[in-house]
């Protein structure tokens, strides 16, 4: 049985695709799943950096596509986990260095030896995006509760829906205190507008910057609350019904989200 192939995308850049891919992947690996992370952002790779693996890159995605090496030679095993490997993007090439078919083929090969292949999608809706989506059978759309991000997420959701792949939403960088003071859209607002099944809500955490600086996914930090949040997301991804943490003190929140999940 081959892996679930999930693209993590957003449209808008900088909302947390790479951070989500890294942390969700790490969490799934901690749960014993075999996880392969693929960086589809050719030319602007960052998944390696976020995981602190940048010094261990030998081969990359494009070289695999061009047949200059085997997939397993390019995969970097993350030593902090039993079953997490990363396929880095090429840095000095362009997105058209690889076709959608080639990319999908590589993801297929990766899927044979894994339970999950998570694809870190580049920002935008151009070739890089199309290639990344071509490799996947499901999508996680990441957005922040901000107007531009939601608008872009909407566009991307529309495009992926055309390809008829199931989509679930992660609302990232929520600031509950700003929601309470009426200065930020709530999760409910976002779900209202986008009408997509909610997979997770991740609050803003300034520690993320530090962890990226050090190349250590935040879920390795037992003291950080995001670790438990990503655990919940992983469990939901695997089909469990896990209640959403109520960050905002909205009494209708739980029921609404429950209704959305059921729908």
């Amino acid at each position: 049985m081959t892996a679930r192939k999930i693209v993590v995308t957003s449209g808008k850049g900088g909302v947390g695709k790479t951070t989500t891919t890294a942390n969700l992947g790490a969490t799934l690996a901690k749960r014993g799943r075999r996880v392969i992370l693929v960086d589809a952002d050719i030319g602007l790779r960052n998944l390696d950096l976020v995981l602190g693996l940048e010094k261990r890159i030998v081969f990359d995605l494009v070289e695999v596509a061009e047949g200059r090496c085997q997939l397993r030679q390019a995969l970097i095993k993350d030593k902090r986990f039993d079953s997490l490997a990363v396929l880095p993007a090429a840095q000095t090439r362009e997105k058209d260095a690889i076709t959608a078919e080639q990319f999908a083929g590589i993801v297929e090969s990766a899927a044979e030896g894994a339970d999950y292949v998570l694809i870190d999608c580049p920002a935008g809706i151009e070739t890089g995006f199309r290639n990344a989506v071509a490799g996947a059978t499901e999508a996680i759309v990441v957005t922040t509760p901000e107007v531009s991000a939601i608008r872009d997420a909407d566009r991307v959701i529309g495009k992926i829906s055309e390809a008829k792949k199931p989509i679930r939403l992660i609302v990232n960088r929520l600031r509950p205190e700003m929601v309470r003071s009426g200065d930020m859209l709530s999760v409910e607002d976002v779900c209202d507008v986008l009408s997509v099944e909610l997979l997770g809500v991740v609050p803003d955490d300034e520690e993320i910057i530090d962890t990226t600086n050090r190349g250590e996914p935040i879920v390795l930090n037992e003291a950080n609350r995001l670790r438990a949040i990503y655990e919940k997301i992983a469990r939901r991804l695997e089909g469990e019904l896990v209640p959403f943490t109520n960050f905002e003190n909205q009494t209708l929140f739980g029921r609404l989200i429950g209704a959305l999940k059921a729908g």
Partner: protein
Amino acid sequence: MIEFLKRLFGQQGSSATAKERLRLVLMTDHLELAPEMIDAMKRDLVDVISRYVEVDREKIDVSFERQDRTLAMLANIPILAVNRPSPNGSGAAKPAEASAPPSTQAEVPAPAQAEAPPAKPPVRKRRKRKKSQAAAPAPATAAAQ
């Protein structure tokens, strides 16, 4: 700082403003992305109105306009002829309309609204907005609201 801005820009929390703007901008975005749906909607609209008055199908113009806090669809449908009212109620022309100039804003209130759903905030129907989707995002009122 946020307090200062609240005083400067009014008391309503900015998230309420944001949500409203987002709702409207997504409606406009979706309409832009669905030209086939708009064509189908135009055809259906004209078919319905043609049951009551004779229209110039070549010169129909449909556009969408932001009006205050909603999006409205404006249809300009030139009327070529209005039949004499018949016993069974078709050709429902008030005498005023019968003498109206041939090309006019389709402000014929009665027939259009008898068919069109009552004006209400657009349904935020999503996702399956393919060509034949009849979940029209904008209220299909023929009259300028």
